[in-house]
């Protein structure tokens, strides 16, 4: 009997997801600052237990990231500052002070935490104890998107109102990297090829780098004159990429971005804030639909079904590795 229980446990573990989907969201209808806030902030997909609200109710969590060495500790780019959300999002502490507000993006590499905010870019080298501005050389400092290179920790790409900027020296100096004049809203690095990066912009469409995020060039016509909000590589299938935006809805490429197919049949509207491929289930794609509901597809967007969080705007969806005791 004991052997049977053990075997069942092993089987269950084998089938259990290795990652949990985390969402940064606000239930925005009828909310203005000072009004009663419907459930908002950080939500975790707990499988059969549904969506779980973690930490405080907060109207403004724009992005999250984690240290791969300790994925139970999340770092949130929030209205109130950088929030360290320990115990998989349950225990919050604000790490920043009164000098930054309304954070836009965050990128974590070990003890180094970068974030983008309304007045520029800041970094901590000691896990959030001390912060310094790191946007020298960027004239217009509003920064919407930011990403640290996973292979070169001093290499960071930022999306400002004047385009993409890159630093190779940990923020001491920055230079233009492309997409001039276009506000980038999301920057990602391919999980298959560290040299390939993509940036989604307002009106400029998609921009691509093949030199490790040093320079970016236009990736074609998709999303031009519209807003592209998010990008997701399918970790299980090289060449499959999803992007999303306002009016284009969800677009999927199966050939590394050479061609794109709309994947909106079954979605209630084409206003999509975020997309994310499930790293544990090839082809499983999540999409956050503007003030409607999160939707999920098992076939890379060919068909969709509703998956909870009604009325939400989900700015970012991130799969976080499960840590088992």
């Amino acid at each position, binding site marked *: 009997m004991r052997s049977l229980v053990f075997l069942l446990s092993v089987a269950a573990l084998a089938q259990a997801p290795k990652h949990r989907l985390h969402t940064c969201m606000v239930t925005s209808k009828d909310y203005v600052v*000072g009004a009663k806030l419907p459930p908002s902030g950080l939500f975790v997909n707990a499988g059969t237990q549904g969506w779980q609200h973690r930490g405080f109710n907060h109207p403004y969590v724009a992005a999250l990231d984690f240290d791969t060495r300790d994925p139970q500790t999340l770092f949130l780019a929030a209205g109130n500052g950088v929030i360290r959300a320990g115990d998989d999002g349950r225990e919050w*502490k604000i790490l920043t002070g009164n000098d930054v507000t309304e954070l836009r993006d965050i990128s974590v590499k070990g003890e180094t935490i970068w974030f983008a905010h309304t*007045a520029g870019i800041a970094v901590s080298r000691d896990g959030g104890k001390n912060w310094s501005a790191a946007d020298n050389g960027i004239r217009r400092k509003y920064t919407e998107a930011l990403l640290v290179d996973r292979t070169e920790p001093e290499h960071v790409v930022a999306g400002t109102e004047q385009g993409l900027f890159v630093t190779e020296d940990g923020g001491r100096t920055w230079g233009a990297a492309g997409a001039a004049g276009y506000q980038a809203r999301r920057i990602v690095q391919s999980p298959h090829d560290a040299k390939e990066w993509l940036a989604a912009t307002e009106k400029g469409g998609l921009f691509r780098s093949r030199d490790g995020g040093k320079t970016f060039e236009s990736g074609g016509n998709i999303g031009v004159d519209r807003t592209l909000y998010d990008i997701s590589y399918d970790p299980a299938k090289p060449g499959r990429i999803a992007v999303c935006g306002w009016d284009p809805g969800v677009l999927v490429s199966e050939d590394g971005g050479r061609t794109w197919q709309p994947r909106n049949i079954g979605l209630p509207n084409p206003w999509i804030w975020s997309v994310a491929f499930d790293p544990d289930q090839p082809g499983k794609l999540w999409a956050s639909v503007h003030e409607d509901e999160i939707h999920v597809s098992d076939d890379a967007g060919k068909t969709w079904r509703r998956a909870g969080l009604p009325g939400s705007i989900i700015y970012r969806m991130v799969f976080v590795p499960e840590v088992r005791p």
Partner: protein
Amino acid sequence: MRALAGLLIAALVPLHGAAPPFKERMRDVVETYAHPKGPGDSGYATIAAKLWLGEDAAWCSKRLEQLLAGGPTGDMFWMFPVTAIAYLGQNKLTPSAMKSLRGAWKTYMPYRGDTENHWLLYYTSLYLMAQMWPDEPGSAWYTGKPSAENFREAESWIKQWMELTITRGQGEYDCTHYIGVYLLPLSYLKAWAKDAEMRQRATMMLEYIMADYAVENLDGIYVGSHARTDDKQVLEKWNGVSSDLGWLLFGVGWPLPVHAGYTMYYAVASGYEPPEVIQKIATDRSQPYVHKELKRTRHRWRFFDERNGRVYKTTYMRKEYAVGSDQGGVLQPVQQHSWDVTWAVKDPRGVHNTLFTIHPFSSLHELQTYFTFAPDFGTESVVRSKKSYDSPDKFLGGSPFEKLYQEGDAVIVLYDIPPGTRFPHINGFFSKDLSYFEEHPSGWIFVRGGDAWIAYRPLAQYSWMPMLGGDRRLFSPYLKNGAVVQSAPASEYPDIASFRKAILALPIEIKLEPTPSVQFTSLRGKRMEFTFGKPPVNYDSWQLFEGPFLNSARDSRKLVLTHGTLRRELDFKTLTVR
């Protein structure tokens, strides 16, 4: 003889003279909330009011626990009532109620917000609560930071805001509603900060903002340009928080039918009575005066190299009316009010005692300058709470295509609206309460409001759009546009014929192509030359305050208040009042 003397005295008492003394006005405000008429009104404000009056402590404790058990909401608008209750309830609330109150500062995380008024409320509340519970660890606070860190963070922001305000001007300047949100936290700090230096700073800032309002009020009505007002008060000038505060602080005008909550919280904290010199400035309209101010825009996150742009205000004041303006342009998002003529009336309630024009501008660019709105949803999300923002018939908001020049009680407003602009027209507000109205063949429109004559010379053709309630909207769909507006008191022109004659004799040259331009000599002999896009005066010499009553040179960190023989100097360098 005695009856005659009585009549003479009665005739000398101005309208605001009927207001009871300050302490009685304070009590009236607090009583409104302590004994609400409806059962649904017994919220935090009632608790605060009763605690201040020393009434029903047991009820206050019970009700407080009920409210907190329901779960806090409202961000900084929850923080400030609860902070007041914490201080007013010391030694009055039960240990259980105080424990519930304290616990909420661990279990509820208020959003800090995205405006300076949000932040001042947030950090003042956090400052005072950290002061009340000074030695607690981060685990006892929603911030995760220990008391001392919360206190330092709050203190440093409050001081930075004060420094920015006294050197560059207020960001949300001269707001008809939010003036309450600035006076309230300063009243808290004056009353409850243990640090004598902070109390002194708060007292001086209270006087600074009170004086700023005092000099630009006409019988309690906040006149001149505003960073923020609202759709209602921009027409019915009396109907807002500023009037309620004007009545409380200076005994002028009319209070709101139900006092504003901000007025009540101001009262139950310091309840600071303005010093005599500010009282005099607020009430003496015996001589006309011109008052100038330098303010700043709110933080511009995008599209500008300078975080805070400059706002140049001019206000002409006399007992019959006021004329106020800024330089035009988008200086604040959504709720800016750039210029108007406002005339005095005996009872302003229900009266639309104002005249002005705007270009109804709305744009994502404006919103993204000041907020983090995403491009596709920004305008809609604003319209959800600010209903008129994207409406062609609105009367609120600045426009980059509007420029202004004022000399005394004459204003030139010019519009140069690019083709393709959303809402390619201008709106002029003409009140139902005008007692005289004439469209003269010369092109001038002559009107009278109260004891003010107003001559309005449109620069382009127009038509009239009726409005609910009898007001009229001047609608002019010409992109090169504008108006010349000259006011005068009825005491100087006893009838319309004399006023009309004087106006028609004034030199005026109008050119609309290629750029709107006007040359005009005002009734007071001032030659005005104004071309859209060209500063009509040298703004480099503009001071923070300049006029007969308030003066503050840039970077002096001093505000000098004068009235007759009274003089009061607020020296922020030394934190002294002389």
